[in-house]
């Protein structure tokens, strides 16, 4: 765990030079009627130039507050926000070289689409002819070349979204901030816009900071993701890292489906812990941070588990447990099993429908579940402010 944290800190340090956005020890506390609420507790982040960076987390995790602090709508209670190395704390939004796409789009209803898109350029006192060309080009990029003279409310939700995007991007900001921009769209449109957003980002090459609570959206679109919970960072990484190596129970549960199991360490040597898992079970967990007698939490993804009727051969018995099939759901391309282990926990197993159709178990079958040790992921507790303070002291 410590090495991973070191690695992260190292990454952060090396990226400072090229970073578009840097957050250093950013905190935000809201005070309302004698009640204080810590929206963001201690945030250190570095977002690279041209990166598609997502802030992911459940509602109330502080991701939108973070975005609003970068935009300048909220001032941090403590810490620094650097845009291209310049501290932006105290600088009003209209002097910051970032633009926002709002969740509600916030299009000006009394202006046409063209007037909306031209608004930012006009504030910069750019010549009329250039404004017209740039607005036209931008509307072409978002596929609304024909709709310039319409009013926002005459457009569909997806089209309004594109106008909001065009209105922000036409200013060529050093970073584009997107606050759940796809949340109001229906599923099909949302998926189309995910592809579209990605295409536009490649085309314009601008840093995108994307706030979302939808893990699928974050995984498919982002170069890197920060998972936030209760105002703190749970983990930062690219989509593969977050999915394949979640550090905390929260990340494992928030991204995709995870089987969370707990067990007592009975042996620990050479960076591998053995935990007890019922009479015939054994589970190996690679970890740097365990001792005999510890109770540790692990996560195994459903698709990493192999289900069989027979006891796996000794060589494959590094991680294997026994259980009873409680439920089998046929999904066409795959089967999902709910297996109750002898220890009482329920495990979900995803099995691709390949050539071995006979491998299918049915309700009530006694089965063996096995997986490779590298797929047992040791989860640590979510970070807390106290822990952070202790780190500082040490």
């Amino acid at each position, binding site marked *: 765990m410590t090495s991973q944290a070191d690695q992260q800190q190292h990454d952060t340090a090396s990226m400072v030079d090229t970073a578009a956005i840097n957050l250093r020890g950013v905190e935000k506390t809201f005070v309302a009627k004698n009640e204080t609420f810590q929206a963001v507790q201690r945030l250190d982040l570095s977002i690279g130039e041209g990166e598609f960076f997502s802030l992911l987390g459940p509602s109330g995790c502080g991701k939108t507050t973070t975005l609003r602090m970068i935009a*300048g709508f909220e001032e941090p209670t403590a810490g620094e926000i650097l845009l291209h190395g310049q501290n932006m704390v105290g600088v009003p*939004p*209209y002097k910051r070289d970032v633009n926002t796409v709002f969740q509600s789009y916030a299009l000006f209803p009394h202006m046409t689409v063209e007037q909306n898109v031209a*608004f930012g350029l006009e*504030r910069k006192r750019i010549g009329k002819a250039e404004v017209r060309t740039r607005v036209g080009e931008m509307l072409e990029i978002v596929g609304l070349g024909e709709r310039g003279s319409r009013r926002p409310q005459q457009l569909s939700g997806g089209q309004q979204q594109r106008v909001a995007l065009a209105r922000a991007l036409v*200013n060529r900001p050093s970073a584009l901030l997107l606050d759940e921009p796809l949340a109001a769209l229906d599923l099909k449109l949302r998926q189309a816009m995910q592809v579209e957003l990605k295409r536009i980002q490649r085309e314009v090459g601008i840093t995108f900071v994307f706030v979302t609570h939808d893990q699928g959206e974050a995984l498919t679109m982002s170069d890197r993701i920060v998972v936030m919970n209760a105002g703190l960072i749970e983990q930062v990484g690219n989509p593969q890292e977050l999915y394949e190596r979640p550090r905390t129970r929260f990340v494992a549960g928030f991204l995709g489906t995870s089987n969370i199991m707990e067990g007592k360490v009975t042996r620990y040597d050479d960076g591998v812990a053995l935990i007890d898992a019922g009479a015939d079970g054994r589970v190996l967990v690679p970890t740097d941070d365990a001792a005999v007698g510890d109770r540790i939490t692990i996560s195994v993804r459903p698709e990493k588990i192999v289900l069989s009727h027979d006891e796996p051969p000794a060589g494959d018995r590094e991680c294997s447990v026994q259980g009873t099939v409680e439920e089998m759901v046929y999904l066409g391309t795959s089967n999902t099993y709910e297996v109750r282990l002898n220890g009482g926990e329920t495990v979900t197993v995803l099995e691709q429908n390949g050539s071995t159709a006979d491998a299918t178990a049915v309700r009530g079958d006694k089965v063996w579940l096995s997986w490779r040790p590298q797929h047992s992921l040791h989860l640590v507790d979510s970070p807390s402010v106290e822990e952070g303070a202790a780190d500082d002291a040490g």
Partner: protein
Amino acid sequence: MTTTEAPRATSPVARRKPKRKWTYYILPVYTWAVLLFLCLPIFVMILFGFNDTKGRYNITFQGFTLKWYKELFAIDGLTNALINSLTIAVIATVVSVAVGGALGMALGRYRFRGKGPLSLVVFAQIATPELVLGTSLLSLFLSLNIPRGYTTILLAHIMFCIPFVAVTVQARVAGLDGSLKEAAMDLGATPVVAFRKITLPMIMPGLLAGALLSFALSIDDFVTTSFNAGQTVTFPLWVYGASRLGIPAQVNVMGTLIFLFGLILAGYSILAGRRKKD
């Protein structure tokens, strides 16, 4: 052919047409009755502006004439009263739109200490009977030794118009997406520019409605004005004074013209609203 026609014959639209139940007529009859009830006095006022009345009393219709329109400003006292009323109404409207608009924006958009009491004062002002406002204002002016006249009428009118503007603007601001202003600032607009380019156009319907209300309230106010007018005479005060002797038909004509002015304003604001929606 037959297959397409068969369902149409049994469709509900076709079946309803031949004979309507009597209950169908309840709503239209009721609606027209209410409209008539509301408009009849106005029709009478307009009609008697064309009455070729011979005596002092303009009560029975004696024939059609346009002479009252020609002699509209023949009565000096009435003309002066109308001028007083119109100038007071215009000034009171302008001032209360400015002050009440700002108040409405504060109440609709921001949270601040004392917002609750302020809101209460605004509503209490609307709810308080005019008689109370008029007499208490009179005792205030008396105790401060302020001579009653044009200025005190104006102050009184501004006072009772402000809450109406504040309330209409507040409703409009509360319905606005708060991120509109943020979006404007995000795109490089200073707070002043954001207000001029975004907020002001957005609250304009509220301001216009407030202005219309203010003008209408001010021009025909009698109760508060009568307590605080001193020697100054406004249109309603003059009409009231004249009513004992018989109201000249010019009053009907002036009423008709004021009514038409209001009608044009209302029609314009409806048209403007409709144009915006397209």
